[in-house]
């Protein structure tokens, strides 16, 4: 019995560390990874709840719990850095072009990590396609600025989006 157990253990470990051929798909953004992983077990926690230095200690803990790779953890931390950076600082570090492209805004703030736009994106939050036609522009603007105003448990982060970027996004999502 003892020998059999030992053999079983070796077989398990050997198969685990055997060099499997890994077919990686396109790397996911930090926002997509949050959408895909946090809600598997619990509500996503607002990024602003912890400081970046705290997230850098919390994420290795979650890496093992949620079966994340080191690369994925780094992508999530990169997204958190963007979300945690005040809007003015973002403008200084990465100046936005004068003609703001709404798709660039969606990408910059990882909106489609959690929301669908024209059929592409995550499912943690509702689709943005009809948000303005259904709820109105005022609702949309306030939701982005104050994500928890209508839902206390909303995990949506307060992004450092500028007024100009928000207007462009609202125009893009308005019914044509």
């Amino acid at each position, binding site marked *: 019995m003892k020998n059999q157990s030992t053999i079983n253990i070796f077989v398990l470990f050997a198969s685990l560390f055997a060099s499997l051929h890994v077919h990686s798909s396109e790397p996911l953004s930090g926002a997509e990874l949050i959408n895909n992983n946090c809600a598997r077990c619990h*509500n996503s926690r607002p990024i602003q709840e912890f400081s970046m230095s705290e997230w850098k200690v919390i994420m290795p803990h979650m890496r093992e719990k949620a*079966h994340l790779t080191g690369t994925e953890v780094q992508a999530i931390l990169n997204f958190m850095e963007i979300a945690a950076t005040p809007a003015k600082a973002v403008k200084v570090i990465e100046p936005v072009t004068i003609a703001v492209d709404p798709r660039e805004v969606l990408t910059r703030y990882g909106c489609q990590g959690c929301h669908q736009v024209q059929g592409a994106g995550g499912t943690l939050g509702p689709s943005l396609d009809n948000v303005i036609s259904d709820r109105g522009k005022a609702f949309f603007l306030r939701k982005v600025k104050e994500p928890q105003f209508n839902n206390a448990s909303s995990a949506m982060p307060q992004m450092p989006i500028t007024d100009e970027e928000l207007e462009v996004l609202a125009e893009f999502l308005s019914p044509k």
Partner: protein
Amino acid sequence: MRIINTIRLVTMLSAGLAIQQPLHAAESSDRFVFVGYGDVKYESADVAGTDAFSARFVPIFLFSLNDKMHVEAELEVGLNEDGETETELEYADIHYFLNDNTTITAGKFLLPFGQFSANWHPSWINRSIWTPGIYGAHGSSQAMDPMLPILSDVGVAAQQVYQVGSAKVFFDVFMTNGPRSEAEHDEEEVVEDDHDIAFARLFSPTTTLDPDVDEDEHGEAFPEVEFEATSSDNNSNKAFGGRIAVAFLPSIEIGTSYYQGAYDEGGQLDIRANGIDINLISTHAILRGEYIRTETDAFVERDHEDVIDSFSRNGWFLQGTFFVGHLFEELGSTEIVIEHAQTKKVEEAERWMVGINYWLDPRSVIKVGYEDTDVADGPDDKRFAVQFSYGF
């Protein structure tokens, strides 16, 4: 003169510490984080005859030694019926990130069998107030006899993660001290403290007067096994097992688990468990379930000889959490939770649970639940509870 020199020395050292202290604090804040959860619960239970408030505080200490090594520990601090503070080490381990997709863990860790123990046990997450019956009551009593009541154990584990096309594949293996015979345990030491008594109850159903006469359908005695993690092992055989899961995120995760451990002193009698777990996540609901089948060896008498025979049990639970606030905005962040669970063959029982979770923010929730357990050979149990739970 000597006193003056001593004062100078103390003054210099104090000044040095005063200068150093902020630097150390700044450095440590990047490496150490204190998080956790807690809850306050009012519970009224029929069979146990209890009607009381209880409270727990569960701090989690996280410490990053460096990019490769991470230490984590979770304590559960609560009050027992006599007002004494009880402390339990839920886990205390170190992760070594061997490479991008491999993690080695050593210490007392959450067992990667199924999903409840490793991922769903904190009380603040989107689930029922109670632990699913097949996993036991985690330190307190319950009417349903658990299948595999292991939250954590001491040993080593390894984890690998692969991206295969659009799927992620998770491999977990572990080797731990494992279980032991409760009969041996009872003979060896007198059960003294309330915690041991509470734990022993997990394996001695409240409906059975003599815990050693649980029988299967053939009238054979069903062995009782204790799983509480210790820093000792009653035999040289280690328990081992693991889990393989496939996930199509963010919607589906399906896993299968295995556990095997010898529980007698001679290392001849094993308990083996197979499990299947599923986690379906959508925008409006989460559906979680697990099925566990156990085979427990025992010596039985056949033709005046002791031979090893196996006793099998199985059980399952399915729990749905529905975000009704998504469909009816006036309900805010309200969830409805429904669970059905069954155990079969020995100590058969069936349970329905309904509950409402109301979230105050993404980490604080008020849960109200009602549970009705039908026990085949014993009194049925009904429970009502209100719990305020918070993660921090």
